């Protein structure tokens, strides 16, 4: 996997994954850690997860991509294999180089993986290409 997260975040996510297996909810201590690490993005990300805003799109080829329905109603695309989100906040933090590790959409994607809760959508290989390409055209 090409994902490179700081060790502390990786550890938190894997601990959470183990903890969530036992109960369906995230224990409070992890919520606190999330808030500590990510600030307000943590609450917003959890909100996105609660609202079932994350969709895992896959095609027969096995390639996958995530789409997240943002609070503004806009849909953003997040890659499954490495950190990329099409939202402006991600571009900003990428621009700034070290402002934040993840945007709330990416965090929501990782949380939904931990909690194993997200919508699933199957599309054709061709449709997946279009979804991935769409980002280049930067829809208005």
């Amino acid at each position, binding site marked *: *996997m*090409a994902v*490179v997260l700081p060790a502390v975040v990786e550890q938190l996510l894997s601990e959470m994954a183990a903890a969530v297996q036992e109960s369906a909810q995230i224990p409070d201590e992890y919520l606190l850690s999330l808030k500590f690490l990510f600030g307000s993005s943590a609450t917003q990300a959890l909100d996105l997860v609660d609202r079932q805003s994350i969709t895992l799109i896959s*095609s027969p*080829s*096995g*390639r996958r991509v995530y789409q997240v329905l943002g609070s503004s109603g806009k849909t953003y695309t997040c*890659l*499954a*294999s*490495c*950190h*990329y989100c*099409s939202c402006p906040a*991600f*571009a900003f933090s*990428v*621009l700034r*180089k070290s402002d934040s590790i993840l945007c709330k959409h990416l965090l929501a994607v990782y949380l939904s993986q931990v909690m194993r809760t997200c919508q699933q959508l199957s599309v054709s*290989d*061709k449709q*997946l*290409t279009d979804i*991935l*390409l769409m*980002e*280049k055209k930067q829809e208005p």
Partner: protein
Amino acid sequence: MAETLKRVLSRGGAAWSREENTPAAGPPLLLLGAPGSGKTTLLFAAALEAAGEGQGPVLFLTRRPFQSLPRGTGTALDPMRLQKIRFQYPPSTRELFWLLCSAHEAPGPAPSLLLLDGLEEYLAEDPEPQKAAYLTALLLDTAAHFSHRLGRDCGLMVALQTQEEADSGDILHLSLLRRYFPAQCWLQPDAPGPGEHGLRACLEPGGLGPRTEWWVTFRSDGEMMIAPWPTQTGDPSSGKGSSSAGQL
């Protein structure tokens, strides 16, 4: 990809090598250097190395077809290996995007190694950082998809030309790229002693091991000669100078 490159560079210094018995590709690697520093040659050598390992075809992306094949790095140009390298020439950034986004649609076996030469040309077309980030991320995503299809890691190695005088755009791109490429290899003009010339190839495997360095020179016929950087210390010479235990 860092491991494959390390094997290529280590093989150049036949009397001393690191034993890499597992043909693992290693993390995605960014190869940086000024024009003429040998990036294309090294990329091509890595392509031959991977092709020789018999794990699958190699996909080599570059903007323009080679006028002539880069000189090897001391090993003979094996036609069997050459056959395993698939060249594609996306003429524009748009074409490259299309190629990467539709990579899962391509029939045939998945490549075991994905190489891209001249990333700077594609980035120059559209300097907007978000697009640059997306192109880079797509390279990783494409390699990840190939890995999924192969059932083992597909390596990724990308060459980026740097200038002597980096401007702010370059620096921005560089920091962006380093987020996505844990391993880097720098080719810089340097020499181990006075009166000598050549390049110092400095491989940073991205936290998986110590930095290793080689001395790279070019013969008059263009062939690349590689030797371990003489001032290197602390590298345990494991056993005798047996030749590389890597796969052939």
